[in-house]
């Protein structure tokens, strides 16, 4: 029982962080149809920037946190403006190649600045073990879970209640019609990229806090693909539920069946689900009225 609770908590934490990273991915795909292969590197950058600010420059961590988010937002805007906007109207495959190129570039920048040796993350989130229902987990994991869930909740409110959030979904549905109500599609694209970069940066920070800062973090980012394909490329709730499902699955297979298999099983489940629901669990079908 203790093992089960332990695995569940681990899975939920990983899942919630995955969901955060996936959310940005979905946002970009929804609003601009771009599949962003550099999403993992956004995690990486977020983790290294806050590591640099706190551990190397020595800035008080809440200030660093705000700075990191701002830097991520700026990065999102720059990437959208300089890399993606010139690609509007180009074939999907070219755009994909560009985001793959972007991911290599960002990775190279990170290793040029910080090198490739893994580093310990500054311990500003307490990580003492806590006992819950007989299971023992690090306090940092609980914080990660709380923060990720809080962020996801905030996003939900943003997308359903705020004018800006509704406008983003409107652009995803019909760009021309959105334009006709004075919504600036360019501004929305910039929003999507900055939110994606900022959430990924936060996700990166949370993972780094648990496993340390290293190039591996981008690999964590790669796991958003099974998540978004499972949840539906264009579904925000799908990203969240997909993240939780994959997180739990990995934790349970790792704990009960064996390490190694936990990297494979999510993909098996993915294939099975896609056979039943080709749009993913929550993907938007084309609405056809009779």
């Amino acid at each position, binding site marked *: 029982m203790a093992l089960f609770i332990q695995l569940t908590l681990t899975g939920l934490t990983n899942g919630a962080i995955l969901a955060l990273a996936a959310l940005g991915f979905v946002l970009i795909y929804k609003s601009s149809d771009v599949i962003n292969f550099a999403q993992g590197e956004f995690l990486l950058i977020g983790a290294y920037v806050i590591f640099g600010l706190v551990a190397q420059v020595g800035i008080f961590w809440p200030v660093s946190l705000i700075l990191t988010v701002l830097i991520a937002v700026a990065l999102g805007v720059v990437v959208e403006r300089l890399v993606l906007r010139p690609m509007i109207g180009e074939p999907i495959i070219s755009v994909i190649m560009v985001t793959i190129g972007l991911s290599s570039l960002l990775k190279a920048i990170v290793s040029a600045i910080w090198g490739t040796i893994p580093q310990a993350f500054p311990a500003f989130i307490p990580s003492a073990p806590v006992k819950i229902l007989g299971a023992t987990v690090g306090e940092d994991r609980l914080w990660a879970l709380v923060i990720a869930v809080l962020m996801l909740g905030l996003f939900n409110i943003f997308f*359903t209640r705020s*004018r800006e959030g*509704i*406008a983003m*979904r*409107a652009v*995803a*549905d*019909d*760009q*021309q*019609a*959105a*334009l*006709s*109500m*004075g*919504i*600036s599609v360019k501004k929305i694209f910039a929003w999507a990229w900055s939110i994606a970069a900022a959430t990924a940066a936060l996700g990166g920070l949370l993972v780094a806090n648990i496993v340390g800062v290293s190039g591996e973090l981008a690999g964590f980012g790669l796991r958003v693909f099974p998540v978004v394909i499972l949840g539906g490329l264009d579904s925000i709730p799908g990203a969240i539920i997909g993240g939780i499902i994959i997180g739990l699955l990995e934790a349970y297979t790792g704990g009960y069946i064996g390490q190694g298999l936990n990297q494979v099983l999510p993909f098996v489940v993915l294939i099975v689900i896609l056979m039943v629901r080709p749009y993913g669990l929550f993907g*938007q079908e084309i*609405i056809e*009225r009779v």
Partner: protein
Amino acid sequence: MLTLNNVEVIYNDVILVLKGMSLHVPEGKIVGLLGSNGAGKSTTLKAISGLLKAEDGEVTDGNIQFLNADIQHKDASDIVRQGIFQVMEGRRVFEHLTTEENLVAGSYTRSSVNLRDEIEIVYEYFPRLKERRHQTAGYLSGGEQQMLAIGRALMAKPKLMMLDEPSLGLAPLLVMEIFNIIKRINEEQKTTILLVEQNANLTLSVADYAYIMESGRIVLEGAPLDLRENADVREFYLGLTEVGQRKSYRDVKHYKRRKRWLS
């Protein structure tokens, strides 16, 4: 309020679609713009609203004036902010958003406004939308979607509302209902209306003035009563045929006219 002077529009740098289009919409009136498929009605509206640029179209000659200022080089969001709102052909509701979210999207350019009150005004005109407020817009009926498209425009509180074929694909009774509401919006909200249609009969019954366009320019204009008297309009737009005319002559002329109208 709105004046088009000899406007020329070219798509993709080569396709000339508007060839010297001129038109005037006085404040507070309903002006009809009639014409068959492909005449350039939608292009005219897009030239005014700035949506042309997103389709690789460009105003290459002439000018478009709104409240005495040139607007042909402004972009779409500026034009909405100045008070012109285009209700696009084919309704174009945001299918995956709810009715109410669609209305919120319509109010995008008006940041300091009490949304609840504005939404209630739309529901007064379209009570059916209120019943469907939390429904996904993609599953509304065609008529309800058209109401939503007009409701979205109301949310922007435009000075000039341009409607592109609101009767398209709707049952006659519903079309009547929608035209009545357009008339009410014009009277109660003091919204000036430019109404693009193929349904000449109904348009002439609500409009104060109407234009008829054909391959990129205006070929006929006048008050509805005068247009109803015009033989060409009677025949090709109102579907009335003159009785008692000499047949042989009429057939020749018919052929020529039909070719001109419908080419």
